[in-house]
């Protein structure tokens, strides 16, 4: 009888453990919460970069100077941000953040990127053909005054299970007509990743 009791007990324990292992849990997080799992570039890094860059770019005198000379809002285009790091980084997440913040500030207007322009032109050409010349006006595009370019570099140092990753994100705003650099933004991120040398 006693044995039967133990057998039943251990079986139900097993079922309980097995059941708790296989279940899936989901919880929602604030996007501002830092979640570092693998040590790789993640959403937190992207957010830190865009916040830093936005604060910086909007507080600098280039906007005012341009408005004073051209008496209109500067038009900006996002160029290439080259990834020169050791990781595959989704660069668009923070350039999009940056674009949105600049646009919403009302101080700057944006020109669609080269790829988007090609798509738009095709669409315009198609609409003109279908709806007649009255429908859409061709060759009404506005040129950009500034281009946002940059690069992400990383330095990796590693010894016996400890890895130090250093990212440096450089963005610069270049006046297209004059090749003048009007703003340089920089953000540095440093992380240390430790690995245990033993586990059971």
């Amino acid at each position: 009888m006693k044995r039967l009791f133990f057998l039943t007990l251990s079986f139900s324990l097993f079922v309980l453990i097995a059941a708790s292992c296989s279940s899936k849990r989901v919880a929602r997080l604030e996007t501002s919460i830092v979640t570092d799992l693998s040590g790789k570039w993640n959403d937190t890094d992207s957010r830190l970069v865009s916040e830093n860059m936005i604060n910086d770019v909007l507080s600098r005198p280039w906007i005012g100077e341009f408005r004073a000379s051209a008496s209109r809002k500067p038009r900006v285009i996002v160029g290439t941000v080259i990834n020169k790091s050791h990781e595959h980084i989704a660069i668009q997440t923070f350039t999009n953040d940056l674009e949105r913040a600049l646009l919403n500030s009302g101080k700057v207007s944006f020109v669609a990127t080269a790829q988007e322009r090609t798509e738009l032109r095709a669409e315009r050409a198609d609409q003109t053909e279908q709806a007649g010349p009255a429908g859409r006006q061709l060759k009404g595009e506005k040129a950009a005054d500034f281009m946002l370019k940059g690069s992400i570099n990383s330095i990796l140092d590693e010894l016996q299970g400890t890895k130090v990753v250093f990212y440096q994100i450089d963005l610069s705003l270049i006046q297209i007509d004059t090749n003048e650099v009007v703003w340089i933004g920089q953000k540095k991120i440093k992380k240390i990743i430790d690995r245990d040398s033993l586990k059971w």
Partner: protein
Amino acid sequence: MPLLLLIFCLFWSFPAAAIEFSRFYPSLEQQVAQKKYDQAIRQLKKSKSEFSGNHQVLYQLEMGMLLHLAGRYQESNRLLHAAEDAMEDFYTTSVSSEITAFLTNDLNRPFEGEDFEKVLVNLISALNYSLLGQPAEALVEARKVDHKLGLLEARLENEKTKNAYRQDAFARYLSGMLYASMQEWNDAYIAYQKAFEGYQSYRRYYQTEIPPNLGDELLRLSTRLGLKADRAKWAKAFPKAKGKAIPPGYGEVVVLNYNGLIPIKKPKVKEIFVHVLGAPYLMKISFPYYLNRANPVAYAQLRLQDAKGKSYSGQSFVVENISAIALRDLRDRIDRIESRAIAQATTKFVAIKALEMKANDDYGFLGGLAVGLAGNIWAFQTDKIDDRGWRFLPGEVQMTRLWVPPGKYQVEVEYFSSQGRSLGAESLEQAEVKPKRVTYLKTRESPSSGFDPDMRLASRYRNTPDEEPSPISPGRAKSEKTNRIELSTPLAMTLNDSRGQAIPTQSQGGIQFSWIQWGKELDYHWGVGFLTFSSILPNTNPDQQLQLGNSYFTFDFRMDFTPSFYGGVDLGLGSSWVSCASCNYSSQGAAIGLLVFGLEGESLGGVLKLGPYSGSATAMNAQGGMSQSLTWSGTLATLGVTYKF
């Protein structure tokens, strides 16, 4: 009892007979050679469960390479990235798998890849990105190659080991090409310079010549960057190179040729003497060595033809001799592998000897013999080398580069042997060349690409094992019936009376004989046997010394778990008896049920049984008057050998 537990644990730690790589690969390699990549991918996918656990990274690498060959570059990258992450996690050593590996063999360690395999993950991934037309991402992989090799060098300096594979010249050469395609001339120049250094050491260690067009690239870039002194240096280093400027508006076609097969690891047995408790023993230990496989292709000729019939041609050159890197890598590490294998074998050997002596002391000569025998079977069964390796890597990567005017081209590749004899030609997909852009193509030489159609793969790659290709078959060959006889002897038993109280015993002994027929088609097997054993109870008066015995006819059932590990039950009914010098007995019924676990090799094997038994008998004194009924029960453990015929 602790001894019994230990033996039991050892049996459980026996590898659930790992996938037989030597049986599994030939058919897949043949499909790869015939360019049936999708078929190979499907077959590998079916075998995914065989690669679970310790071989997971190997699966990811093989699948990644097959997907690369099939032109499914994004999927390939997903797997290669996963493999890379898993390999990095192996920095954390798992103590449990190390212990298991030490008691069995290195196949019970997670496959983490040789150093060159760890680096090639990134290189193949870089090629994936290149072929996808994403040079920036490809360069990320190239940077990882540099970082890994830097780490490797630091580690090896720590371990004071020499190693030839310190830099990957091809990764740097490819970086140069990628930077140049992005018009990053400075970076391209630096990368090509490093490639030049790399290929100098490649020439020394792997007999790989410096790519002939590296000189042209260096001359062109030093001119472009206005580095006059450097230009003079390169003109001296590459007297044949002209460094002619690329006509403006031209685009480049790059064809990657994968030739041959990578060497495979095979076991080699060495005999060495070890000293255990002062006595020398001869021990056989298996080590891996690389079996090189011949690569019939010396170079390839690339022909591009545009719509008007104008054609351009170029010859391929070796950029990475993976076979040579693999061979050299193993040669550099063989001392470490050997000392580990010796340590492993000695540990096993000493453990068996110690158990044997303990069993000899506790259970007498037979017990010692049984333990020793079981131990030796186990040692023999587990003496396997770690023959895992990334086998779908090509033996060699060659490259052809051609600058041509923009347009659409028919692409043809013709292969040549080292004597300049044509081995046949094949057409690749049409290439579209855009100005100042690089179009990457890749191909793998193969018998089906138009040459040697009747030649079998085995004869083509001279040293390929000539086994018939076979899919993974976890079961034993089921074409014939086999017979098995088992001979076991009790290792330990406990005895309780009818009230459940332990009866002390003075000595115990017995024997079980079984015959089992291993069926033809079924994984279930059955047999019959006879088991008898007895216990002598201690008594100072020899006349009253009581002997309790049980004899059973057993019905035996077995089931295969893996090709060399099986289990089952022995159920028995029979009679019990009680005897002493001065008494008669009448027998009564008895029953037994044993759980069985067994291992088997080619013909010999070991078997462990464990289970409860019961019996009752009536003893009468010599005068026939007094009678005493006895009932007992207990647990029995036996250990034995099996022989298959």
